[in-house]
């Protein structure tokens, strides 16, 4: 018989009766050994004296403080993540002044990359480069041109 059944005599209804199949499973038909059994000894230990009110209040205050701190940190982190993925907005209408950024969803985009911007050179290769000696092409003439369009 499980201890649950023993310690809740009021709930000892027919619905809570283990089925035959349930009873036939030996692992569940026996009282749970070990720590669980020790936590629920047949004889109740003497009750502790109730916690003093000021101690309880102190604990509650500590918990409140931590809840506030954790909440603020969570909101801060979440807000930072959202802002870092949201384009900034240009709010300054005056010509020649620097744009300021806010979290307005109607936003002027920042650079494609926040670190190097549109001129950022690719990492690990790519970029641009010039060839070897001119004679390396065997005196070939131009294949194309770059001129003002």
């Amino acid at each position, binding site marked *: 018989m499980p201890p649950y059944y023993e310690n809740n005599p009021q709930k000892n209804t027919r619905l809570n009766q283990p089925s035959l199949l349930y009873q036939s499973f030996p692992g569940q038909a026996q009282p749970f050994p070990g720590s669980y059994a020790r936590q629920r000894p047949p004889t109740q230990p003497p009750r502790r004296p109730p916690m003093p009110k000021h101690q309880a209040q102190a604990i509650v205050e500590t918990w409140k403080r931590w809840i506030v701190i954790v909440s603020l940190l969570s909101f801060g982190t979440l807000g930072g993540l959202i802002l870092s993925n949201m384009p900034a907005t240009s709010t300054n209408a005056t*010509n020649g002044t620097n744009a300021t950024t806010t979290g307005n*969803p109607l936003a002027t*985009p920042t650079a494609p990359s926040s670190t190097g911007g549109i001129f950022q050179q690719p990492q690990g290769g790519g970029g*641009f480069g010039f*060839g070897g000696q001119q004679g390396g092409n065997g005196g070939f003439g*131009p294949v*194309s041109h*770059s001129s*003002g369009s």
Partner: protein
Amino acid sequence: MEVSREATGASDPFLIQVAPRMFITPDGMMRDEFRAMGTTIDLLLPDKQAQEAARVVRNLFATWEETLSRFLPTSELSRLNQRSGTSVMVSTLLFDVLQTALAAAQQTDGLYDPTLLQQLLRAGYDRSFDVLPADQPEREGTVEPGGAWRDIQLDPTLRLVTLPAGVGLDFGGIAKGMAVDAAIASLKQLSLDTALVNAGGDLAVMGLPDGYTAWPIAIQGQKTSWLVPFHHGALATSSVARRRWQQGTSQRHHLLDPRTGEPARSSLWSVTVAASTCMQAEVATKAVYLLGLQQGKAFLIEHALAGFLLEEDGSWSTAGSWPAELMKPLEDTDE
């Protein structure tokens, strides 16, 4: 030889320019050429994949032009410009180009400005340059400086764009540069390993033709051109030699200075920039041209780019890793 429109007549020595068309097509490659985005698109593609690759690139440029041309009244950009002051939902392509253009404006402190449409119209550049009359009448009104890009509002979630009332977009070369980059990306998706895409002088390359150690690219000057062995990346050039016209008694060109709203004045005749992408190179050439020789060089070095700066008096200098020692003069382009 293709003679540019400027060669047809003016006393201005800078107008006497003949675009070299004696380009070599490397063995194993095929050249394709077509008009789009107001310029000539020149492709070098491997023989075996040329047909399919050319079709993809042609379609790409056609789509970009239909979406982004300010000269097509039915383009998405034209419709957006007509609805300034209200929020308009736009396509992914237009939104991406606008986002990049605004980032470029921000990072050049407004030297690149995509909101100079009204100033360009006032200067007489109101139709495709192919059909622009050489003489334009003076127009009434004062010229406003640029900077309206700071007031554009975007909603990335819904791709909503709100232009300030009365402000219009003209992306200029950045759209062309981005189209070149997109074309190269498309060719990579087709598993091409060698190609050159050139949109009116803004070009990008990948791989190398058989037997070549670099792509020999001609950089055009006033009277002399130079051959530069370019290995990988992109090149763009900005110059006032082309796209010039007369307005009343004033000589106009398409490079406006956002600080004044007027055609830019610079000691530089042309700026060629090498970068990872054609978009980067295109934006940098405009910024360097407006900054002038010394500040322009500092800009290039700051951004780890390389440049070839040609001054009006014919002298030239380089910045960054531009290989002056590898440049080889070509024959005079005067005729």
